[in-house]
C-alpha cells in the first residue's frame, strides 16, 4: 500500500476509505498486487468496504483466502 500511496501513513488510520486515502483506482491496484503477491484471487464480491478500511480488515481477508497468518 505504501507503494501505491507513499504519502499516507496507513498504520495510523482505521478507515482508509472514509478518510479519502484510497479511491477506486487504488483499490484496483491493491487487489491486483495482493493477488500477485500471495498467489490468490480475491473475488469481486469480497471487495467490500469492511475488508479494505484498515490494515486489520485486509489481513482478515487474506486469511479467508487461505493466506497463512
Amino acid at each position, binding site marked *: 500500500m505504501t507503494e501505491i500511496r507513499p*504519502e499516507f501513513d496507513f498504520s495510523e488510520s482505521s478507515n482508509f476509505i472514509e478518510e479519502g486515502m484510497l479511491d477506486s483506482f487504488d483499490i484496483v491496484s491493491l487487489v491486483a498486487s495482493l493477488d500477485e503477491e500471495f498467489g490468490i484471487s480475491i473475488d*469481486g464480491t469480497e471487495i467490500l*468496504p469492511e475488508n479494505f478500511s484498515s490494515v486489520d480488515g485486509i489481513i482478515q481477508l487474506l486469511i479467508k483466502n487461505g493466506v497463512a497468518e
Partner: protein
Amino acid sequence: MRKINLIEYFENTVSSFPDKLALVDNTSQLSFGELKLKAQLIATKISETTEAINSPVAIYLPKTNDAIASFLGTLYSGNCYTPLDPKNPVPRIQAILNASKPSCIITNNAFLPNLEKCNLDIDIINLDKLNPGEDIDESYKYKNCIDTDPAYILHTSGSTGVPKGVVISHLSIIDYINWVAETFDITEKEKIGNQTPFIFDMSTLDIYLMIFKGATLYIIPEQKFIFPATLLDYINENKINFIFWVPAVLVNIANLRLLDTNKIPTVKKVLFGGEVMPPKHLGYWIKSLEKNIVYGNMYGPTEITGTCVYHIVDDSFDENESLPIGIPCRNTDVLVLNEKDELCKVGEKGELCVRGSSLALGYWNNFEKTNNVFVQNPLNKSVPERIYRTGDIVFLNEKGEYIYIGRKDFQIKLSGYRIDLGEIEHYILSVFDTINAGVFFDRAKEQIVLIYESEEEIPVKDFRLKLSEVLSKHMIPTRYVKMDVLPKSTTGKIDRALLNKQINNI
C-alpha cells in the same frame, strides 16, 4: 412557441410532475416542486448579491441535490453556472476563480474555509445559512436571456497550467437533450444512475434528461464505485434502468466478472463515453445482461456539448474489432480534414472537426485560445462559418462509421478525465524548480510517467506529497524515472518524441 431557455423546460416538467421524485442523493431527496422552490430561493439570493446577468456564478459544492438546485437557481437568475471540483487542491480552485471572475460563489459550511484561504474579493452565498422562509423574488431575470446566452462553463485541463472555461449556450443544450431523449426514448419513467462528476460534460445528459423529461436522477454515492459489488446492489435497490458511465467503471465490473453473480435486471439502457470502450469488456456486458438492452457509444468533447458522434451497438458487434464512434447526431455535421485542410477520403486519417449549434461559444476570458480551435470552415469560401477542431484523429470506414485513432497533441484521457500533460508539467516545474522534467503517458499501463533530470534521486513520497497540494489526484504521476541527463534535441529542448517511444516501446 419554441422554448428558448432551460428554465422553460424545467417549469414545463414541474407543472407536469410536481410531486414526482426528481433527485436522490446520499442524504436527501427532492420532488420537482421542492427542487423548484429551492432553486428559486437560491436565485433570489443571487439576485440580492449581484445585478449581473449572463455572468458566471461558481458552484463549490460536493455532488449533491444542493449542487443541482444551485445550477437551476443560477439559471433562474439569468446567469451561467460554473461548477468547481471539490476535490481540487486550493491553488487550482484559486486559478479557476481568478480566470473566470464569477460574480458570486455558492458553497456550504464544509467548503467555506477553502474559499477563505483563496483570499478573493468575491461575494459568497452559504447554502447552510439560507432561510427557507424567505420571500422569493419573482422577477426571474432568465426571461431577459436569449437562447445563445451562456448556461454553463466547464473547465478543462489547459496546456499552460490555467484550465480553459468552455462556455455552453442554452441552445446547444436544448438541441442536445432533445436529440438524446428522442434517440434513446427517454420519458419520466427513466431512473438515471449518475456516475460522472458535475465538472464533466457527460453529466449534462443525466441532469438535463431529469429536467426536460421528468426522469428521476439518482446521484450515486462515490464510495459505491470504489466497491463495485455495492454499486450493483445500489442499482437493484433503486431499480435504476438507465446509466451513462465512463468505460473505466464498466471495465472494472467486467474484470471482476461481477455480473456472473450479481444480476441487474432493471437496467435497460447502457451508455458510455469519455474514453475508449474496450470491446472485450463490452462483450462481457452484452453476454451477461439480457438480450434487449441498448448500448450506446457516445463520443464528443466538452466544446461541442456532450456528444457529436454516436454508435448504437448492433448485431455486427465483434469483440475483436474496435468499437466505432459511429455517425453524427441530428443537426450535427462532422468533417475529417487532412493536413492540407481538405476533406479526407474513406479510410484516410485526419482531424475530426465539428459544425453545428452544439459548438461552444468559446473559452471564457480567452479569445486567443478560442480563435485557435474555433475557426472558419476551410471548405466554406462564401460566408463566415465556425467549426471546432477537436484534435482527435479519426477515419471513416466503408460502412460510413467514424473510427477513433488517437490525439494529435499531448492530451490524454484517464477514467474520462481529460488531462493535458503540459498542465501537469507546468505545476511540477513550478513546485520542483531545480529539476528539468517531462511528463509522458504509458498507454499500455495507463500510467502518467514523470521523467526528470537530477543529480540526486527524489523520493516518490516527496513528489506525491508536494504535488497533491497543487494537482488533482488523477493528474499526479504514477511512475517517477530519474535520468542523469535527459535526451535533448539540437535546439536544447527535451526530446519528447524519443522518450515517448521508449516509454511506449515503439
